[in-house]
């Protein structure tokens, strides 16, 4: 750099100045923290274990967590409005069961998929209507949804049903090669869901209303926003996402079982919180939830690479991460208020 003082308005000097003094907007800080956590875990893992730095590990991370990514997207919508959806794990189980049973009955695979998606969306719609029109707390209404979906799953079959349909197995293993590395279709669907959701939240009237309701529902109502349609809408989206995640899960595991996905709603909520979405609503991004899922996924991968740690450490570490993020959120919001 020359010693001549350049006026600050000059483009050349200010580029460096802007980079040097750049502070990301506060609203992106949680996402940056999650991204840093992910990269940190990946870096530490890469140093300790050979083979973890292989890009294929990252691809596998997406493939193995495709269903959780989609669940996280739906959950993000609900949590952004200040609600919660406990039913998603059961809806995933129900979806695998419907897919397996309808295929066993000889339905065409596409009709079976449509049935799955319709069921999940309908369940979401029912819960949304209960929550908005009867003022039932989201927690208790989706609790009913949890019992209902699990009950229907048991009603269809108590036994596990395997999926042997050629279209399903073909879809499950269809891969795309990027150079030497491959990615499954399920992961691409998950990433596409994230992209669509990010667009909807950032660029549409519906998305802005979601944030407005989470910020203050009464204000949103007084502003003339369509609170009722949006509030029911987020549960419909969550139900649809849970059904889609259920389809991805049945492609991943190729069976329908009423014991699938027990406690998966907790993973989804944890991923959303670790991704920086405020549980009180109004702040957060689906991209953060994607990163949250990847953080949970990399912990799982690290534990399996290590080999000496038992799998239950995943739960304990998830709890600790959850605690850390909730406390940080708490102090961040207290300072602003």
């Amino acid at each position: 750099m020359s010693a001549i003082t350049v006026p600050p308005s000059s483009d050349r000097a200010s580029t460096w100045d802007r980079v040097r003094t750049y502070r990301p907007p506060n609203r992106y800080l949680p996402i940056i923290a999650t991204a840093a956590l992910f990269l940190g875990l990946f870096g530490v893992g890469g140093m300790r274990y050979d083979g973890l730095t292989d890009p294929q590990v990252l691809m596998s991370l997406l493939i193995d967590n495709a269903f959780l990514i989609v669940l996280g997207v739906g959950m993000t919508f609900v949590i952004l409005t200040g609600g919660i959806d406990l039913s998603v794990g059961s809806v995933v189980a129900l979806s695998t069961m419907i897919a397996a049973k309808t295929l066993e009955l000889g339905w065409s695979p596409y009709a079976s998929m449509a049935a799955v998606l319709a069921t999940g969306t309908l369940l979401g719609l029912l819960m949304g209507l209960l929550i908005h029109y009867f003022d039932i707390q989201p927690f208790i209404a989706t609790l009913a949804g949890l019992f209902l979906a699990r009950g229907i799953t048991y009603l269809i079959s108590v036994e596990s049903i395997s999926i042997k349909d050629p279209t399903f197995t073909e879809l499950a293993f269809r891969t795309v090669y990027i150079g030497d590395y491959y990615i499954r279709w399920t992961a691409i669907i998950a990433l596409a869901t994230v992209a669509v959701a990010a667009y909807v939240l950032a660029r549409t009237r519906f998305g802005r209303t979601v944030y407005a309701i989470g910020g203050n529902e009464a204000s949103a109502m007084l502003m003339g926003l369509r609170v009722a349609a949006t509030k029911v809408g987020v549960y419909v989206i969550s139900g649809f996402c849970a059904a889609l995640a259920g389809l991805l899960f049945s492609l991943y595991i190729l069976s329908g079982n009423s014991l699938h996905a027990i406690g998966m709603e907790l993973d989804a909520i944890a991923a959303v919180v670790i991704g920086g979405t405020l549980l009180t609503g109004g702040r957060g991004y689906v991209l953060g939830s994607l990163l949250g899922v990847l953080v949970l996924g990399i912990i799982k991968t690290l534990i399996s690479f290590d080999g000496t740690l038992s799998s239950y450490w995943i739960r304990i570490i998830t709890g600790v991460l959850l605690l850390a993020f909730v406390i940080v959120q708490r102090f961040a919001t207290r300072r602003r208020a």
Partner: protein
Amino acid sequence: MPENPTLVQRVLRHQLLWPVLALLVLLLVNVVAKPSFLDVRMQDGHLYGNVIDIMRNSAPVMLVALGMTLVIATRGIDLSVGAIAAIAAAVACTRIIGAGDEAALSTAVMAMTYAIVVCIVLGAWNGLLVSVLGIQPIIATLILMVAGRGISMAITDGQITTVNNPWFSDLASGFVLTLPLAFLVAVGMVVFTALLTRRTALGMLIEAVGINPEASRLAGVRARTIIWTVYGFSGLCAGLAGLVIAANTNSVNANSLGLWIELDAILAVVIGGTSLMGGRFSLAGTFIGALFIATLARTIPNIGIPSEVNYLFKAVVVIAVCLLQSPKARALLRVRRPGAPTLVKAGSPA
């Protein structure tokens, strides 16, 4: 109320009317399906029959729901009770196995005391997050709900641990005065709590915190201490429930022990008429609610439906109870019946 209500009016307005009616209807369904359902006979020196089984099976849910009632009365919720129950069982079972004399009474007492203390500490941890750090209860207890099963598995090293201690298994299968010990323990806790909250100011203070935490703080109520206490108590109740469940099978499976018991407990509290919005609570209602859930679990196989479909009925009950309590649904019903609007209005509690 201007005029003295007659007995019938008092009964109709009593808040326990609906829970008790629901329980009676459920029993009636059972009797219709199987006339001998209510039969009770003496066998091996204690009572024996479906009703006795229901009593015994209701104990864990009753215990958890008891702690949950007080937590909900302070406008909170405790999602971690299932995980705490699993931890209690894991601690007790590993202690019994680790002790010198596995079958001794002292071993059982020591192990259970140890487990209960751990659970009170865990409950107090929830209370710390809620009262001192000011985190929403549903989130604060979610943390332990997620981590708790992992901790429980870490204690048992991921194995299904089986114990062999007759005193410990008596907690679930033993009988005192011809009644199941587990039921008597649960009822004893309910009575103890009722005396503690209704014969002292504690109950009123808990309700005050639930109705308006800020106002009660300004009025000199130590809201923080009270919140701390109810979460600690909920931990204790969950721990007892975990011990009863573990004693029933003489083993602990950290993955499945107490799974979804938090949901059953919340359901029992809601059936009993305690509002999830905090404030007024009914211990007698919770007692009936827990009996209702245990009876429902017994009814479904009795009328010839696979017991797994239980969940479906629970969903229907949750929705029905919530709609009955929802002011908007009541308003809707009132419009449909224009005949007696004033009477319904006077009868509905605030």
